[in-house]
């Protein structure tokens, strides 16, 4: 019986064998992510700023729509205020006709500037037709 044999490699060399690493994909590279992020944000910001500009012009247009109408509306309002003030003055003169030295329509303010009435006039029942 032969003696013990040492366990050694095969003579010559081992044969090559085929192998493959099964590593899942790590996704796009950092550079691609970075560029993609800025691309998407740039697209969004471009349209956001463009729409903001458009909105600004829309508001400008809206304001000027009103500004063009102001003289017309003010003229009508002035005529009505004038009519009401004249009626008020006439009524006051009628009521106070017996009081000597009564100045009709005298303003309560110490100024020559016109002061728009802040208190709406209550019209007494007897002055309504």
């Amino acid at each position, binding site marked *: 019986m032969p003696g013990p044999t040492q366990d050694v490699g095969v003579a010559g060399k081992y044969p090559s064998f085929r192998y493959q690493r099964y590593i899942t994909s790590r996704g796009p590279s950092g550079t691609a992510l970075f560029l993609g992020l800025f691309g998407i944000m740039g697209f969004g910001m471009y349209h956001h700023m463009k729409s903001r500009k458009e909105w600004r012009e829309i508001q*400008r247009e809206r304001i000027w729509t009103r500004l*063009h*109408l102001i003289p017309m509306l003010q003229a009508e309002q002035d005529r009505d205020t004038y009519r009401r003030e004249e009626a008020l003055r006439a009524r006051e003169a009628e009521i106070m006709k017996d009081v000597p030295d009564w100045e009709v329509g005298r303003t309560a303010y110490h100024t020559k500037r016109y002061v728009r009435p802040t208190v709406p006039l209550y*019209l007494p029942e007897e002055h309504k037709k």
Partner: protein
Amino acid sequence: MSNRPGYDHQPYEEWVDPTPPPAKVADVPNVGATSAILASTAFALGAHCKEYNEDFMLCKAEDENPAHCLKEGARVTRCSIDLLTKLRERCHKQLTAHWNCLELNNHELYSCRPEEQPLNECIFKNFGYKKQVPGAPKTGTPVHEQTKRYFGNSRNTF
């Protein structure tokens, strides 16, 4: 609107002063157009009545008293009525389409561009007034002439 909030003690009827207008303003008519028509024609009005409007506003700056600017105000009103009458004669269809659209769209001009463009063309053809928003940037298409837009009805939006 018989009772306005905060004025329950004073019904609307009691605010009305039935006194007829004084002789000075008796023969001046009021415009009597609804707000949609006014919004629709505002730029034409600003162009048509520019001199009268400026005169009136300068007069108002001089003295705020309503009795001070009655003559100028009457001119402004007559000019406005003149324009609206002419618009009704010449651009009735376009004007009606536009102001009806404004009525349905909360009076937002940007919701009614498809209706506005024929009206602007009609006004330019008949009166020669080109709609220009003062202070708008010199470069680029004016906002009311853009074909692609962000705001407005979805069929025209970007």
